[in-house]
């Protein structure tokens, strides 16, 4: 990519990533949540890859790490749901509710959001990586 794209990406990329994490973390207070924030996190890595090429992004997150983290996210979602059995039922909100409008409130709902954000972000990035690898394979043929 050109110098302009690289320079702008270098400035903007951390903001995109932090904004995605913000959306995930504030899912129970403001609009957003795990699904939307996860997509933004994935987009920051996709932007990194578009600007600087395949090597830079995959040196941070390889395809194996992405695929494994995806599975870990799904399993952790189920584990938190299973923890509800301590309170009596599947998906029971067992943690303390806390004060409203605070970042650490609402019991297990933020935990679900974090796990979903991890899962969605890593999963979408893995899909993008798979397509890029396919494209490279086609070109080499």
């Amino acid at each position, binding site marked *: 990519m050109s110098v302009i794209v690289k320079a702008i990406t270098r400035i903007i990329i951390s903001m995109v990533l932090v904004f995605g994490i913000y959306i995930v973390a504030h*899912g*129970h*207070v*403001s*609009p957003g*949540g795990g*699904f939307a924030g996860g997509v933004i996190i994935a987009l920051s890595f996709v932007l990194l890859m578009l600007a600087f090429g*395949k090597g830079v992004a*995959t040196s941070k997150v*390889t*395809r*194996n790490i992405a*695929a494994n983290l*995806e*599975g870990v996210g*799904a399993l952790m*979602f*189920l584990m938190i*749901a299973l923890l509800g059995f301590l309170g009596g039922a599947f*998906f029971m*909100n067992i943690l303390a*509710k*806390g004060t*409203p*409008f605070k970042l650490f*409130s*609402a*019991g297990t*709902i933020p935990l*679900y*959001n974090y796990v*979903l954000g991890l*899962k*969605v972000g890593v*999963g979408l990035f*893995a*899909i993008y*990586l*798979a*397509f*890029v*690898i*396919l494209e*490279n*394979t*086609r070109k*080499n*043929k």
Partner: protein
Amino acid sequence: MELHILLIFMIFAAIIAIEIKDLFSSVIAVGAVGFALSLAFLILKSPDLAITQLVVELLCLIILIRATIRKDLPLVIEGRWVFNTVSTLVFVAVFLFFCFTALKDLPAFGDPIMNVVKKYLEQGQAKTGAVNIVTAIILDFRAYDALGEAAVLFTAVIGIMAVLRSFAKEGGSEEDGAK
């Protein structure tokens, strides 16, 4: 009780779908499993999932029927016209009867039943502690839906990985391009 009957029915239908020789009958048996699953969702108090399951099941059934049958369905017209007419009329009558009984219980237009939603709106904040009522609903009251969506995404990623991996292997030049 109804749930157990439905589950047993689903198990039997699934076994029939696997064991039967005729492909078309097998597809119909799979459809029976899907419709029973949507009824089970309805009994478990998740109408959203029941509607989704019903619609997806209809689409899947039509696609599967089109995929398994090369030619159009045979229509028996000659001969048994008395039997055909009578059975058609009986089915229409049964259908209209069920429609009538179902439509009688519907609320008046513009005056929906707000039993569930009213409870969510009034007690959602106190029960979950989440200020964002949408998040409170999708991750607490209806967390099964979120689990289903996560499972759908997980399955999609696995499917894409599996398909593209076989493509990449056919290319053969780059086994693991991520490194």
